[in-house]
């Protein structure tokens, strides 16, 4: 994955070393180590594969929000809309005989992207608050629509009869969830690599520019609206793929793929992990889902309480989340002898 950066550095001006920026996109050792974890997890937690798949899917979903919030700076309380659109797209296709998983993913990405593109024009302008309310409003409209179109979606009972075919016609989805896990993980990894390219590219840099200073961007010649539309559309496509994965690995679509709490929880996971860093989204999801699994096993209500408390504390004291803390630890470790 690494680099077309091996080219020798051009003669630096005044002995200046542009290296740090030149090589910013190189894969770090810690990243390789990070991606070994899910492979190890497959063997260590072999009886918990369905949880692992859920984590991979949620991580992809969280990544999608990070692209639009962490990079482009668009706050959203309704991101589940795209997740849900993807989930229903894949589900309806599979239900009506188009059960090929990759076709499902592609269709989900396309339809979610189209939805994102159309709704992006609603979030171009306005304060954070307006955007929060607009995205929330759009998402509840989708929820209501899915809820009412029972003939189509199954309404509150969920979409039954989703039959997913084997991947490439070879790898069928087994009872233990092995295929499901590898499938989710590989899709996550590929999507992650694409996102990683994107955020390190000039396009990604311009998104960061928009987030950091929206009003300066037009003054250096950047068409802000176009970039925002693109980022929002891409984020929606990512969310759609995550939704489709959930449908395909569980062979079911429940109405709550579109729910407000899914959007809110997602925002929370991202903030816990650290916005504006791809690994923040991944690590946040891992920590959150694991904690959720074990703590809510003990008592679901306690879990929600501590979750709320954690959120309050993060906002008050650790706004850059787990990734921010890790980075500070790392920096402190460097300084110490």
């Amino acid at each position, binding site marked *: 994955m690494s680099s077309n950066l091996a080219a020798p550095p*051009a003669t630096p001006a*005044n002995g200046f070393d542009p290296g740090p*920026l030149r090589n910013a996109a190189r894969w770090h050792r810690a990243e390789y180590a990070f991606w070994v974890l899910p492979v190890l997890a497959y063997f260590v937690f072999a009886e918990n594969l369905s949880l692992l798949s859920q984590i991979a899917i949620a991580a992809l979903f969280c990544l999608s929000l990070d692209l639009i919030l962490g990079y482009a700076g668009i706050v959203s309380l309704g991101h589940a809309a795209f997740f849900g659109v993807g989930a229903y797209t894949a589900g309806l296709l599979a239900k009506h005989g188009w059960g090929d998983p990759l076709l499902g993913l592609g269709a989900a990405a396309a339809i979610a992207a189209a939805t994102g593109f159309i709704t992006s024009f609603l979030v171009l302008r306005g304060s954070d608050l307006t955007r929060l309310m607009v995205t929330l409003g759009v998402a509840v409209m989708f929820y209501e629509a899915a809820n009412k179109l029972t003939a189509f979606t199954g309404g509150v009972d969920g979409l039954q009869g989703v039959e997913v075919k084997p991947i490439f016609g070879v790898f069928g989805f087994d009872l233990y969830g092995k295929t499901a896990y590898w499938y989710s993980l590989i899709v996550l990894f590929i999507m992650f690599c694409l996102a990683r390219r994107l955020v*390190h590219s000039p396009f990604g840099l311009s998104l960061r520019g928009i987030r*950091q*200073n929206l009003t300066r961007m*037009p*003054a*250096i010649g950047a068409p802000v609206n176009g970039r925002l539309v693109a980022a929002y559309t891409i984020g929606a496509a990512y969310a759609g793929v995550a939704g489709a994965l959930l449908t395909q690995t569980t062979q079911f679509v429940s109405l709550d793929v579109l729910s407000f709490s899914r959007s809110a929880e997602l925002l929370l996971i991202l903030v816990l992990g650290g916005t504006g860093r791809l690994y923040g989204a991944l690590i946040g999801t891992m920590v959150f889902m694991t904690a959720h699994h074990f703590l809510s096993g003990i008592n679901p209500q306690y879990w929600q309480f501590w979750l709320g408390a954690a959120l309050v504390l993060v906002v008050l004291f650790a706004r850059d989340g787990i990734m921010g803390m890790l980075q500070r630890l790392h920096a402190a470790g460097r300084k110490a002898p």
Partner: protein
Amino acid sequence: MSTVLETRNLSKRFGGFFASSNVSLDIKQGARHALIGPNGAGKTTLINLLTGFLEPTSGEVFLKGDNVTRLSQHQRVKRGLVRTFQINRLFAEMTVLESVTLSVCERMGLGWKWWRPVGAHTAAIDEAAELLSTLRLLDVAHAPTRSLAYGRQRMIEIALALAAKPEVLLLDEPAAGVPTDESRGLFETIARLPREVTILLIEHDMDLVFRFAERISVLVGGALLTEDVPEVIARDPRVREVYLGTSLDD
């Protein structure tokens, strides 16, 4: 010499109040033009109108003969009309090199490229580094913008604009908030810009204005009071009155 930037009867109304009224300017290719006037005269508003940051209530803006009144900000930047802001608008979390590279990338039309990393666009980075070198900012190239002292941040404000390769550069009080000793260096940098770049400067320090400008427009209450060469402006009693009237309570 040919006109490069022109306004015709440009007006901007906020509620019942005209922040710009009927301003007609004519700025020649390669000019060193200063815009002066007391606080609240509408200087920044005029720049906002020129660049499309604000829409005029009436009137028109022409850039190199084309009517650009309806163009958006970034389209005008693409045509060579670039500004700086009176109050810094920087990318606080980026390093200095990153933010200038961002501006260079936008000018080179790389802003939509999403596959190769910024680091692989060596031409952009080299150009950014070179610009930093001319502005004596190279030593802080990898420092986050927010960690710099205000004077140096002010230089980045200018660097971002220069990275867009302006044909017409609008500088809104570039030295505002900069300690005097540092502001000398800043103005030397501005004075060294090549003649191809037309400059419209807003500045309060009259010494600097009279040293730098070849023509001066005086704005009062949103309207153009007069425009002439510095010697004439310096002797104009109306200008003196305006400035005496305000410098007392400054």
